[in-house]
C-alpha cells in the first residue's frame, strides 16, 4: 500500500477568538493527501469553527480574531494576497443542513462551473454523471435532472450537495456533520462515497457521531473546549487512547 505523506493542509498554532471568548486555543495538525480525517468532540468544542477556517468561511463572520497559520499547499490562506474565491474552489464544503438552491438538479450541479465562467467545462453532462455517480445519486435522479432540487428527499439533497461540491474537482472536501439529519441508508451511501473520493482528494469530516468517525476515517482528531486533545490513527484513538478524556468521550461516558 502506498504511504501518502505529502501534507495538503498544515495548520500551525491556530487561535480564534470571538471577542473575549476563545473558540480555538492553538491547534496544530496536518491533513495528508488521500486521507479522511475526522474531527470529533462535544458541541462547542470548536470543530465547526476549525472546519470553516479551512476555506475561510470565517470571513463572513464579523468580530473574529484569527492568529496562527493555515498553510494550504505551502501557502498561508490568511495572507492578504491569497484569493479566498480561488481557495474555496479548491476546498469544497458540504453543510450539516442540505443546501440545494431553488433551481433544477442540473442547474444546481452546473452552478459551480458557471460561477467560474472562464473555465467552462466542455463535457458538462459527462461531468454531471461522474459526480452524481461518485455521490451514489446517479441512478436515482438520472431521468429527472430538470426537476427542482428541492423535490428530492433530504438524503438525496445532501448527496446532491456532495456531488455539486465535486464538480470543480476540489483537492479537499470539508464536511460539517453531513449526516446529522439523514436516515441510516443515506448515511451509509455518503460514507461509501467518501471511501471512493479519498482516492482523489483529502477529506475532513466533522461529526457528532463517534461511530461514524470510527467507521470512515483514517485518522481522528478529538477536540474539547477549543483544544486539540489527541490526534492519531482512528484505530488507536478508539482502542488505545493516550488521553483519558479521549477514552471517556469515545466510549460514551460524556459528550
Amino acid at each position, binding site marked *: 500500500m502506498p504511504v501518502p505523506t505529502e501534507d495538503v493542509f498544515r495548520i500551525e498554532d491556530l487561535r480564534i477568538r470571538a471577542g473575549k471568548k476563545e473558540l480555538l486555543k492553538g491547534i496544530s495538525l496536518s491533513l495528508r493527501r488521500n486521507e479522511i480525517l475526522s474531527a470529533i468532540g462535544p458541541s462547542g468544542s470548536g470543530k465547526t469553527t476549525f472546519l470553516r477556517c479551512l476555506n475561510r468561511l470565517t470571513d463572513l463572520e464579523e468580530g473574529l480574531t484569527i492568529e496562527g497559520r493555515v498553510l494550504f499547499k505551502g501557502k498561508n490562506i490568511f495572507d492578504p494576497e491569497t484569493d479566498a*474565491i480561488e481557495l474555496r*474552489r479548491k476546498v469544497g464544503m458540504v453543510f450539516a443542513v442540505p*443546501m440545494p*438552491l431553488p433551481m433544477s438538479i442540473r442547474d444546481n450541479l452546473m452552478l459551480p462551473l458557471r460561477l467560474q465562467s472562464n473555465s467552462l467545462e466542455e463535457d458538462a453532462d459527462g461531468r454531471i454523471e461522474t459526480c452524481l455517480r461518485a455521490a451514489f445519486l446517479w441512478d436515482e435522479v438520472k431521468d429527472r435532472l430538470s426537476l427542482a432540487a428541492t423535490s428530492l428527499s433530504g438524503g438525496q439533497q445532501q448527496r446532491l450537495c456532495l456531488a455539486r461540491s465535486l464538480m470543480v474537482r476540489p483537492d479537499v472536501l470539508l464536511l460539517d456533520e453531513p449526516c446529522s439529519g439523514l436516515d441510516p441508508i443515506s448515511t451509509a451511501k455518503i460514507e461509501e462515497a467518501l471511501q471512493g473520493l479519498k482516492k482523489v482528494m483529502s477529506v475532513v469530516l466533522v461529526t457528532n457521531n463517534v461511530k461514524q468517525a470510527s467507521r470512515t476515517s483514517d485518522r481522528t482528531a478529538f477536540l474539547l473546549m477549543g483544544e486539540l486533545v489527541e490526534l492519531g490513527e482512528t484505530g488507536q484513538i478508539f482502542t488505545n487512547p493516550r488521553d483519558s478524556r479521549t477514552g471517556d468521550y469515545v466510549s460514551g461516558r460524556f459528550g
Partner: protein
Amino acid sequence: MSRRPASERLIETFIRLSAGVAIAALVMIFIFIGKEALPVLTSPKVREEAGLSKLFLPQPPAAGKPARFSWQPVSKVPKYSLLPLFVGTIKVTLVSLLFALPLALGAALFTSEFAAAWLKEIVKPVIELLAAIPSVVLGFLALIVTASYVQNVFGLDFRLNTLNAGMALALAVIPVVYTVAEDALSSVPNSFREGSIALGATSWQTAWRVVLPAAFPGIFAACVLGFGRAIGETMIVLMASGNAAVLSWNAGHPFRSLSATVAAELGEVVKGSPHYHVLFFIGVMLFIFTFLTNFAGQMFVTRLKEKLTGAR
C-alpha cells in the same frame, strides 16, 4: 366536542369579526361604486349621451367633422372619450415605474447584500420615511420646484409634462417597492449565501445568481404593489400633470389621468347626470385594473413558487 373557555371563544369571535369587516368593506365599496356606474350600461338617458361606444370609440366633435377621441364633459355637446385618460394614466405609470423600479430594487439589493450593518440601519428607515411624506407635498415639489428644471434639462415644450409628473410619482412608488423587496431579500436564508460562497462565488455572484432568484416571488410582488400605487395615485398627478386630456404617448406632453379626473370633477358634477355616472364608471375601471393586476401577479407568484420548490 370539548368545551373551550368562554374567553377563548370571545377572542375567536372578535378575530373572525375583524376579518369579516375588512372583507365586507371591500365588497361594499365595489357594490356602491358599481351601483353608481351601472347607468352607463343600463339607463337609456345616460347611454344616449355617454354609452360604451361614446366612451371608447371616436366621436365627431360636430356634425360633419372627422371623428376623434376627446374628453370634454362640460362642453355644449359633452364628449366622454376615456381613451386620452387611459393613455395618460398608463403613460405616467410607465414613466414612474421606469424610474422607481431600478432605483428601489437596486437600493434593496444594496442594503440586504452589500451594506454594512450600521449603514443598513440608516438607509432602510430613511427610504421608508419617504412613504410618510404626504403626496400633496410631493405634488407641490413637482409643480413648483422641479417642473421648470426638468423642462429646461430635457428641452421640453411644456412645463407640466409626463416626465416630471412620473418622476414625482416615482418618489411615492420607491418606498413601497423598496420595503417589500428588501424584506424578500433579507428573508432568504443565510445558508443560501454561505453555500454559494463556499462554492467559490463572489458576493456579487451570490447576490445576483442565488439570492435574487430565491427572492424573486417577493420581488415580483413588490413590483405589482408599486404598479398599484402608481396607477391609483391621485394628488401628485392632479397637481403636476397639467390635466390636459390629450391623446398622446409623448412623455414631454401634459396628460390627464383617470384618478385625477375623478378627483377634479366629482366635486362639481351634477348628481345623477351622465357625467356623474361616467366618473363612477372610471372608478370601477380603476378598481378592476388594480384588482386584475394583483390577481395576475398572485397567480404568477404561486406558479413560480411551485416551479422553484418542485411542488406540483
